[in-house]
């Protein structure tokens, strides 16, 4: 019986998931159309090219080597920075949860590090690390902050009656953390991890402007300074697309976590 129902069920699921994706596809389609029209009619000035021109730049085989080199460099920095940042953010959130007196100090510190303008820290970065590590560092800083805020907010979200339960069970702080606050916080952390995707890209791109050897961010700078608008937006589009795909993947994770823990 189970074997008989599973195929139609699976088909129905497939259909449903297509139906769920449809609006997003329509949305992206409309957005592309708008981009094209605004570009063609120069509604937003000369620095907004029609989409077709940007795509033309992207698909031109002459540019493939340039684009893949840049994209893979940037992607590697994003991945590294994201992992480091998420790791540190989660670690700090965990640390202040288990050692509460540190909370206020770390809160202030994390906010402070995050808001100190990167431009002001540029010389410090330059002395402390190799130029090619700066994008990773700035990406990690931005991700750390986001994940820290999301995780601490999530960890604060346990319901009072559950906190009471753990109190009467004689739970130690780390048990309360692991068995109650961690599951409670997972949806917020998942949201944070999702939101951290575009943030990680932004951090990396900005970091690349501090003198990295290659990357999509450099193409943007170069495109701006030489008024190579199609190249500028090709780099932006490539960044956005990658970020969109990863964001959608994290969105799936987020949904799964929400279903499981909410």
């Amino acid at each position, binding site marked *: 019986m189970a074997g008989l129902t599973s195929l139609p069920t699976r088909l129905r699921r497939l259909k449903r998931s297509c139906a*769920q994706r449809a*609006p*997003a*596809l*329509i*949305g*992206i389609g*409309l*957005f592309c159309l708008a981009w094209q029209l605004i570009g063609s009619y120069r509604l*937003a*000035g000369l*620095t*907004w090219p029609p989409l077709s021109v940007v795509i033309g730049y992207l698909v031109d085989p002459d540019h493939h080597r340039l684009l893949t080199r840049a994209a893979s460099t940037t992607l590697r920095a994003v991945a590294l920075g994201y992992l480091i940042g998420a790791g540190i953010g989660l670690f700090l959130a965990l640390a202040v949860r288990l050692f509460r*007196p540190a909370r*206020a*100090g770390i*809160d*202030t*510190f994390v*906010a*402070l590090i*995050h*808001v*100190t*303008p990167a*431009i*002001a820290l540029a*010389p*410090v970065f330059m*002395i402390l690390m190799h130029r090619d590590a700066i994008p990773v560092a700035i990406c990690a800083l931005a991700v750390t902050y*986001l994940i820290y*805020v999301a995780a601490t*907010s999530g960890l*604060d*979200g346990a*319901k*009072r009656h559950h906190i009471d339960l753990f109190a009467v069970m004689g739970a130690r702080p780390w048990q309360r953390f692991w068995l109650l606050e961690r599951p409670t916080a997972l*949806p*917020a952390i998942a*949201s944070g991890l*999702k*939101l951290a995707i*575009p943030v990680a*890209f*932004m951090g990396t*791109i*900005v970091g690349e402007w501090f003198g990295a050897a290659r990357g999509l*961010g450099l193409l*943007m700078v170069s495109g*701006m300074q030489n008024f190579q608008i199609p190249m*500028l*937006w090709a780099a*932006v589009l490539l*960044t*956005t697309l990658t*970020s*969109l795909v990863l964001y959608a993947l994290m969105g799936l994770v*987020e949904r799964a976590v*929400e279903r499981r823990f*909410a």
Partner: protein
Amino acid sequence: MNRLVPFLSRYWAVLLLVVVWHAWVTLGDLNSIVLPAPLPVLADVVTHPALYLTNAAQTMATALAGVAIGVLLGAFVAILAWASRLLAGLLTPLGLIFSSVPIVALIPILARVLGYDISTVVAIVAVSAFFPTFVFTGAGLRDLPRATDDLFKVLGATPWGRLRHLVLPATVPNVMISLRLTVPEGVLAAILAEFLMGRSGLGFMFREAASRFAMERALGTSLVVTLAAVLFFTLAHRAERAVKARWS
């Protein structure tokens, strides 16, 4: 004494950072155009209070206006996206694209539409605050307590009534998280925009000072920016906690 303990508990990490900074500059014999020591930076700030204050006030006002617009817009769009799958499909990629486009690339476009003035700076701050709010409010909307959702069904609430009396209040805690997240971000975006295209404000002041190696001044503006952002962060955090107490 009993003032000192809370102060230390909040600022120990920051003080540690300053000490490390000072030690690094003095022991490492760093050139002052690379990194000045903390004391001269502080001295520049306290000896030019008016200069810093007027610029800080402008930047903070810009940041607050931008964040307010961005958070409201983010929450509004999150609600639209929650209300309709089609809108969600339309708006999510749009928001994501906006948040993934580097501000520097957006400036000429925004400036073309809004003009090379403060409104573009405000718009840039709003763009930076928009997306985190959109994401966190959206998460809150998907997480409405089931029981209250049922309640509104049996009360025969119209979508608007449900929105007004259940959804909007229920998302307040998450909007508060977004606020904590975006308020410092907003200050940063404001100074970046001022740095790139302003004629006043802390961002401009930084650029002007850094371009002539007035590093005490440049780091002084950074310090003030940081203080402003930390102040906003702390206020937002307080508000978040107050709301949480009220909401549970």
